[in-house]
């Protein structure tokens, strides 16, 4: 029996994907486990390690590129990490434990982490292949949007969080933005009609136009192959200079699938973020755990912490917890968590201050808070979130619950 001798040779840990999950993981590994791992971070975008969430702020010109950093890349390099950008991975050989980059580089790994994220979902309609139809996922998308000069008609397809952020950013840049949304109200998965109406009014005041209950049938292209009009199912045509697709995201799983990993909607992982293949992990928007995929940052940070522990040889388990929704539009405060469309045996407590655009709806079931929508004043959001998470019995404070923590606490006291 050979005793395992501790060598100075570090394990090669490669992270595919330089988005928020990959970069943040790489950064934390550099700080915590750079003795043990040689870390390589590979991204397809020219930029690594930026805060993707701030793209809407960048688009709205509320922050500059200098504000975009999520992690300190220089610090990573000086701790010995290898950073590769603008060079997407083309394939993974599970047997050889190696991968090939677009530039032809082949590199081996001891541990591989897939963090390829997701891409904007393209609607299955004609015209989406045109070059002026873009998603709102990457820095490059912001650059494209910023490149349109003057006051132009722009279409955003999808009235979800991302679509609205894009729409506001574009409107702030002076464009005439129309949002096409299939549902009857905005953020239909996070808001009810009343709060959505307040939001819509607010965004309209910012210059965004809305077509609700409207689905584009075709994106009509001009002779240059650019989309010039959005054609609706009723035949109406609306001129446009650009189309931003914000009708959802699709996990980027091509690489994993090709490598033979088990993939459903996304790459399947266990509670330790392990894929079906030895030494390969996945996290972020490209992974699927317990039938769920992830689009918000909070669970992904948790995944990173789990993975950091697992890689350090410690025990850790990833658990899914409800996550509240917020919209990153400056001047708009909204908060939504849990079950906001009441079931038959749910009760809704509603506070509505139309004059100051302040709305609260709480969904209560059998003494427990199960969902909340706050619009306007969201200061109590995290408290409601805790009540939901902790399954706190709220029966004794039903008469004050909607007025927030301070009132309920003073009643307890």
């Amino acid at each position: 029996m050979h005793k395992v001798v501790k060598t100075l040779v570090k394990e090669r840990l490669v992270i595919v994907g330089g988005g928020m999950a990959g970069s943040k993981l790489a950064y934390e590994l550099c700080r915590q486990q750079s003795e043990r791992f040689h870390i390589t971070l590979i991204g397809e975008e020219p930029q690594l390690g930026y805060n993707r969430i701030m793209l809407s702020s960048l688009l709205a010109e509320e922050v500059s590129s200098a504000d975009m950093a999520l992690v300190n890349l220089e610090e990573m390099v000086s701790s010995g990490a290898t950073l590769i950008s603008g060079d997407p991975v083309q394939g993974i050989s599970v047997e050889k434990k190696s991968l090939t980059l677009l530039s032809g580089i082949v590199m081996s790994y001891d541990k591989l982490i897939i963090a390829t994220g997701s891409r904007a979902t393209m609607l299955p309609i004609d015209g989406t292949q045109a070059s002026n139809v873009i998603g709102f996922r990457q820095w490059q998308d912001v650059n494209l949007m910023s490149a349109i000069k003057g006051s132009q008609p722009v279409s955003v397809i999808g009235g979800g969080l991302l679509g609205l952020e894009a729409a506001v950013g574009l409107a702030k840049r002076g464009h005439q933005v129309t949002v096409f949304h299939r549902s009857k109200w905005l953020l239909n998965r996070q808001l009810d009609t009343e709060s959505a109406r307040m939001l819509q009014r607010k965004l309209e005041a910012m210059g965004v136009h809305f077509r609700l209950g409207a689905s584009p049938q075709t994106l009509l292209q001009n002779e240059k192959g650019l989309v010039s009009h959005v054609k609706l199912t009723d035949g109406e045509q609306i001129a446009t200079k650009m189309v931003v697709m914000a009708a959802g995201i699709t996990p980027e799983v091509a690489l994993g699938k090709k490598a033979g990993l088990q993939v459903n909607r996304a790459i399947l992982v266990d509670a330790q973020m392990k894929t079906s293949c030895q030494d390969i992990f996945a996290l972020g928007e490209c992974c699927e755990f317990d039938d769920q995929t992830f689009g918000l940052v909070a669970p992904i940070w948790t995944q990173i912490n789990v993975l950091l522990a697992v890689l350090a040889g410690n025990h850790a388990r990833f658990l899914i917890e409800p996550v509240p929704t917020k919209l990153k539009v400056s001047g708009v405060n909204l908060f939504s968590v849990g079950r906001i469309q009441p079931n038959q045996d749910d009760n809704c407590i509603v506070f509505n201050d139309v004059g100051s655009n302040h709305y609260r709806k709480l969904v209560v079931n059998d003494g427990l808070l199960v969902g909340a929508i706050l619009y306007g004043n969201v200061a109590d959001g995290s408290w409601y979130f805790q009540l939901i998470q902790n399954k706190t019995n709220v029966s004794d404070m039903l008469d004050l619950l909607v007025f927030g923590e301070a009132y309920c606490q003073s009643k307890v006291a």
Partner: protein
Amino acid sequence: MTTTVKTTCPYCGVGCGVNLSLPANPNEVVPPVSGDLDHPANFGRLCVKGSSLAQTIKSDDRLLSPQIDGQVATWARAIDTIADKISQVVKDHGPDAFAFYLSGQILTEDYYVANKLAKGFIGTANVDTNSRLCMASAVVGYKRAFGSDTVPCNYDDLERCDLLIMVGSNAAWTHPILFQRIVAAKQQRPSMKIVVIDPRATATCDIADLHLAIRPGSDAAIFSFLLQESARMGLVDDVFVTQHTNQFDATLQQAMESTPDVTTTAAFCGVDEHDLMTLSQWWASNDKAVTFYSQGVNQSSSGVDKCNAIINCHLATARLGKEGAGPFSITGQPNAMGGREVGGLANQLAAHMDFATPGALDLVQRFWQAPNMATQNGLKAVDLFQAIEAGKVKVLWIMSTNPMVSLPDTAQVRRALEKCELVIVSDCKAHTDTTAMADVLLPATGWSEKDGTVTNSERRISRQRGLLPAPGDAKHDWWAICEVAKAMGYGSAFDYQGVHEIFAEHAGLSAFENNGTRDFDIGHYRHITQAQYDGFTPTQWPVPEGKPEGTKRMFADGHFFTQDGRAQFVPINPSLPALKATQQWPFVLNTGRLRDQWHTMTRTGDAPSLAKHTAQPYVDIHPEDAQRLGIIDGALTRLSSPHGEVRLKANVTKSTPQGQIFVPIHWTQQFANAAVVSNLIPQTVDPLSGQPESKHGVVQVERIPLLQYALVVSSRPQSFSEALYWCVIPSDQGFRYEVVWPNGVNLARLKEAFSPLQEALCVERNHWLEYTNPMTGQLRLACLAGGRLDTVVYLSHQPEVVSADWLLSKLASSDALSELDRIALLVGLPANVEDKGNIVCSCYQIGSKQIEKAIASGSETVEALGAVLKCGTNCGSCIPELKHFIPKRMELSA
């Protein structure tokens, strides 16, 4: 420079002296009044009602000019109208077709001229007064025993007695200053025994050594028993009884038959035998004993008998006319006594003379030079209103009282007033339940404007002094009466140059051919001048010529004002109230006053601070009765009797015994839609005194299901036509209502009902704040107009207690409403909410002010802020903004 004048409080019968100051500038608010240190009734003390008098000096809803059939008229026309109509009905139907219905609120001089006009010049004795409802039984009780309506005691006796028996009196609330004097005396001499006899456990019981919670109306049996116990224990003063009284043996015999022993008596009264024996022992061992009695005794179908049962005990033991002893009737009103003194009751003639008093008619006729003397008793209050309904009385002049609220069986009173050909109402208020029934309204001066005298419960005459000018066309009541008399051709008899001349004439009549034959003699004042009248100091009558210091105590000499000079024992067979509870009407209803309201709230209703004690009318009900009926505290409850219905909120309390309920008397239709308790009371009266049994009704009590309870606070007056119940609560800042609707009110209906006027709507388009909670049934709505609070409505399926004070303060505030204020409007109170400022970190809801605070405490980097506040540690997108905060603070500190 302020002018300060000594005057007298216009509330209860204690008659406290008040200092009223008037600012030099008439536009300034009258400062709060203070108690007159020199007045022997109160020595500077004032109760909360009296202390709030200045708040009632305001012009809200004053009647400012005469009105005929709802149209403003001149005094000249109003007086001609009245004089012509009286002359016509007297000519067509005789003098008894006219009647006065006066009040213990008016002054002695007002009373005097009214009585003189009616009984001497028009020729009718139909001069009755709301004092009929208050102490008529006490009057008859005294007259039966003493031959005169003489209160033998004074307030000192309350402090000097060793045993004080308080019967049918919640003096703690109704006569607070006397009560305070008693409390102080007991503190000084803890050996002093206080016994309270009352079916309810009232605030007065707080100082009682013994509380006998008797069966309603059984009071006389207690004193019948005490009389025969006095005999059994040898307490009877044989010398006094033999030399100065009649009828003792028969009376004792009756007592022994009615209340033969403690067991029988205790069973009749529903009290513990041991407690009854304690009373008996204390009666035996304390020679200095005062029995203090009030409406609980008087308002009874056997009220006179109760009074005489009490007086019998004092006569038998000679416990009267001495320091610390006597049967002491305490009157409810400020000048009920003054009314009695001039004879302003239908069964009196004048100056403590009756129609039956030998020679009295002739004497008074000669004194007045009266052309048309009435010759026999007129109609007492209840009979009077029945006669009006029967068409016998055709012109009624109501002065300073509110019979639509205070007389029993309001429906009958309404029918009578509707039937009456001419209803004249003199009042200082434009809107009362009674002014609503008037054909002619006469604007009267009010307290602080009126000039004259009043007499309190201890026979003490004091001046009420006018300090403020009469508003509008308001005139003194005596002036209005004299003008009508002149218009009817009696000018020479009513041509007074000032109110002191009326007082002088009144004094002259009291002394006229008196020579000690009549108790009421204030002959000392018969030539009083204006200056003397102005300098009048409070004095207890009799004040005969040559005795200017007045008289502290009566009957010290054993001489009474009967034909033979001897007091009369009256055999009493105790009886219970006329109506008994039945299966259909199972509850016994008791009524009474509250501490901080007065009568029908025409004055106290103007003082918002007085509404703080009890904001709304209510019905006291015992917890077990309430539970059986499914009534919870605060729930709207229907009380019905054969005569009518009221709807009140339940006050579940053990202070009222099972099977009995209690309702305060004060709320009129000006303050609540369905709270006039007289609706439930039958017109049962004492056959001798004519005093109604207002403290006894039999009623049914029901829970009213499926209701919505509301608090409404508004800057505008609101009306509630569809409400089962509404009550307006006085406020300086706006309008506060408590309302109960039947189920079915929703937000849309509320919005419709409480929308401000169209022009206000234009100020701010979006102005509704709403809160709905189906689990609690809460529905709340706030309406803002121009950024300021206009109206809030709180609705709930259960009675809720929400303090309206803060909401009212918001009505008055011109400060802009913050977001937290706006939430608070629907909560009803401000929360101790940390103002976070604008939210910077939306992941953890961290606001600008929290960040600034953390930076000030030393967290001067983004990481440090994240460590203490968590801001920026989730999505991180607020980090650029966080960075902006840090230099900001550095600049500030630099």
